């Protein structure tokens, strides 16, 4: 504390200093009441029995029973595998996108964003169509005579992995990409004029510089997948369940709230341990996109060792690939003309990754008009029947309208709370900025199920379960971080001197905001709003625990139908969701390209 006091001798009782914090108050208060308190309460609850007496019984039960320990191990290994595949699969895609021209980049980015914005449940349904016993892969291989029996691609570890990796790879790619785009291209050129071949330049220079992005994506994917239950439940086998599924079972079937709370504590503890280990070795700052060189800053012995190992590894890989290159050159001689690189292998690997992310959902469209009763490939005939089922079902229509309404209200509330906070965080030096920012972003990494369960306890006491208000508040917890991140990113690129110019030209602060700031930030604001809206439409954990039979929601309805009966009407619903998402993305792209054009016109 004394250190802080020394650094900030300017702290005086200046009312303007406190006014500066005012825009943060609503967001922080909101999160304190509906996020921090419920989660804390939940943790508290785990130390009591069902009569309200303090006990550590639940933890004893956890430790005593080897099955629960197995579930924890399952969850950890599942997350580790998901992380590995996301990073290995995502890296070439991110590298490809980072190193092509901007003109080629935009369409590829679109194909990464489409799955990111598409409801996870819809994507899981698509994988059911592709991987099922009568699915695309099995039917194709059977008809080609390559296999005689359908392969078991679903309801096992493979299915879960495919679904989870598909779900998390876009985030991994975007986080790696944000670091890669900041790597100065002249560094690779410098390496080659200094005598390094392309492959050597990559392993010694580019790869080490991209590692902070890899580490940040790894953390994000690992922590997110710890709380996953959708893919394990719908694509996995019942014998191999995850922690989050166990929590749901305890709540919905055993009605053992206290034990569920204890399980949530384990999940939370695992999350926190991972984050702390990450911070100790690599530093959390790489998460917020502040690129730091791998060998930089405060660094314990672990960090030094890992950077030492990293350099040795880079060197070994570099020389390995150089000899490979020379060898290949011997096998396939021929005078190569110096020219733009074609990099066929990178293109093939990268585009395979993009296809893996972008294509699956499109298989739902033909299924939605197929006469076949099951999600069987290939589609047969043509019928609007499944759309009729959807539109004539009051539950589906009610769920859709409510989801859209709740989504719009959530996006509005997230903007009201998030935009002022983002302005303060992006533009001013506020004391405790990192703490406040961490609080805002925390809901993104915490397993949603923990927050949802905590809210359920709170709502049960104050009668908000099954209300629209309750749903909007719950969804806002998760949409808020996306609004804050998006708006902060837009503000980082905004030239504040434009505002200053407007003031010196005689505009008041209000007029400046309306005539200069807002028009320039419009595209970013709309993006933030739509992001919040789409996230809210897709939020299943809140829908499961806060909605009730009287308040059907789209994700909950999808989840229930997918768990019990699967028919093409689900594909019809999914197609409609795809259309909504597609329109949202189209709006964002149009706004962005319009903004870009206007900027180039100015030059």
């Amino acid at each position, binding site marked *: 504390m004394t250190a802080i006091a020394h650094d900030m001798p300017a702290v005086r009782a200046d009312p303007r200093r406190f006014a500066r914090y005012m825009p943060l108050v609503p967001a922080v208060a909101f999160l304190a009441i509906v996020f921090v308190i419920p989660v804390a309460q939940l943790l508290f609850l785990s130390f009591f029995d069902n009569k309200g007496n303090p006990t550590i019984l639940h933890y004893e039960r956890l430790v005593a029973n080897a099955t629960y320990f197995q579930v924890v191990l399952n969850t950890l290994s599942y997350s580790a595998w998901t992380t590995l595949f996301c990073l290995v699969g995502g890296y070439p895609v991110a590298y490809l996108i980072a190193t092509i021209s901007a003109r080629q980049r935009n369409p590829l980015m679109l194909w990464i964003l489409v799955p990111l914005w598409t409801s996870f449940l819809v994507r899981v349904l698509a994988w059911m169509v592709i991987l099922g016993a009568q699915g695309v892969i099995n039917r194709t291989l059977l008809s080609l005579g390559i296999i005689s029996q359908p392969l078991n691609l679903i309801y096992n570890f493979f299915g879960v992995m495919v679904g989870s990796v598909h779900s998390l790879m876009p985030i991994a790619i975007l986080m790696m990409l944000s670091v890669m785009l900041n790597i100065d291209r002249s560094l690779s050129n410098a390496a080659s004029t200094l005598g390094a071949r392309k492959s050597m330049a990559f392993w010694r220079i580019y790869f080490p510089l991209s590692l902070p992005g890899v580490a940040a994506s790894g953390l994000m994917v690992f922590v997110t997948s710890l709380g996953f239950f959708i893919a394990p439940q719908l694509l996995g086998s019942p014998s191999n369940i995850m922690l989050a599924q166990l929590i749901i079972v305890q709540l919905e079937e055993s009605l053992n709230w206290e034990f569920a709370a204890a399980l949530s504590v384990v999940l939370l503890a695992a999350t926190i341990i991972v984050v702390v280990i990450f911070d100790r070795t690599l530093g959390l700052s790489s998460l917020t996109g502040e690129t730091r060189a*791998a060998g930089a800053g405060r660094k314990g012995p672990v960090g030094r060792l890992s950077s030492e190992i990293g350099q040795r590894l880079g060197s070994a890989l570099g020389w390995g690939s150089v000899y490979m290159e020379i060898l290949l050159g011997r096998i396939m001689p021929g005078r190569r003309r110096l020219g733009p690189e074609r990099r066929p292998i990178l293109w093939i690997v990268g585009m395979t990754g993009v296809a893996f992310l972008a294509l699956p959902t499109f298989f739902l469209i033909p299924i939605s008009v197929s006469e076949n009763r099951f999600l069987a490939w290939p589609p047969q005939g043509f019928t609007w029947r499944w759309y009729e089922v959807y539109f004539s079902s009051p539950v589906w229509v009610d769920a859709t309208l409510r989801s859209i309404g709740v989504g719009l209200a959530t996006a509005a509330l997230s903007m009201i709370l998030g935009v002022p906070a983002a302005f303060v965080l992006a533009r001013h030096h506020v004391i405790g900025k990192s703490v406040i920012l961490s609080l805002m972003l925390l809901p993104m990494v915490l397993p949603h199920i923990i927050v949802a369960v905590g809210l359920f306890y709170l709502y049960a006491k104050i009668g908000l379960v099954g209300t629209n208000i309750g749903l909007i508040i719950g969804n806002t917890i998760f949409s808020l971080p996306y609004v804050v991140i998006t708006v902060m990113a837009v503000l980082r690129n905004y030239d504040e001197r434009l505002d200053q110019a407007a003031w010196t030209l005689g505009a008041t602060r209000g007029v400046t905001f309306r005539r200069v700031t807002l028009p320039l930030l419009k595209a970013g604001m709309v993006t933030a709003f739509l992001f919040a809206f789409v996230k809210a439409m897709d939020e299943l954990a809140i829908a499961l625990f806060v909605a009730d039979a009287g308040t059907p929601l789209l994700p909950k309805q999808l989840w229930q139908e997918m768990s019990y009966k699967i028919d093409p009407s689900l594909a019809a619903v999914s197609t409609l969701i795809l259309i909504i998402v597609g329109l949202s993305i189209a709006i964002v792209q149009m706004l962005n390209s319009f903004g870009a054009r206007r900027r180039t016109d100015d030059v």
Partner: protein
Amino acid sequence: MNTKLRLDQVAKSYGPVRALRPTSLDVPQGEFLTLLGPSGSGKSTLLQILAGLTACDQGEVWIDGRRSTDTPPHDRGIGLIFQNYALFPHLTVAQNIAFPLEMRKMPRAEIDKRVARMLEVVQLPQVGNRLPRELSGGQQQRVAFARCSVYEPSIILMDEPLGALDKRLRDDMQTEIRRLHKELGATILYVTHDQEEAMAMSDRICLMNDGGIEQLGTPSEIYFRPRSVFAAEFVGHANFVKPAPELTASDRCMVRPENIRILKEGEQADTVVEATLEDTVMLGAFSRHIARLATGERMVAVNWSDEKGAPHHPGERVRLGWDGAKAVMLSAERGR
């Protein structure tokens, strides 16, 4: 004279944009040649083609008498110093300097010895273990120079290496680069858009404009004998006057400001014009006089400041004069 580098009809287009017209250039061993020109004149493209970072559409590049048009950059043995230095941010200063030696598979002991010696040469013996961003701009510049000369390339290309430095540091570094040039005996190709820098450092200047070479010559040739209006205007200040009646209208006559005198009463010169003085600025050693001719043309004369001479006032009628030998006849066409 030993030709180190030869460009033979090298050209490059980016789509419809002609970055470099067919250009030929010979650079002898050990020369300090500056590519001078405004942005977009093709000088950076030329450098990129020499380094092998950009492929040319046509023509040939010869290095040390070997055809090198298709040699990849890592095999050219050319040193390139980038505008932003391009120091590897994750490697220490010593590791940065060791990088090209490692690429040449030099034994570790030899690498350490050379790195230490190079740090001495650039007068930074203490910073080997620091990261680039812990250094000042001038220090980074010297590390970039050390990294690129440690493997003793016989050709060093520099792409506006002093652009990011402030004026004083830039002057120091100019001297430094001149010193290192003499010490290492390397052939240096230096890109800049700063004419004073080009004058101060070069053996020869290659003036570029609009994707081609405008004029090639020593600094004094370019300054005193520009071959085109562009060359005259880009290097130094130029006065243009209507040609004598016997010349065609497209030809112009150029006189440098320091060669125009304000004539005293009765003083004569080869050419004399009448003008009205608009402004006089005392710059210390020199004074600059701005005058307007009856035809509306503006002329600038720069003369030694004279404390005792009669002071000039705006609005005053003066006679300006210069010697015929100091006037340069220019064709309005390009000088090539």
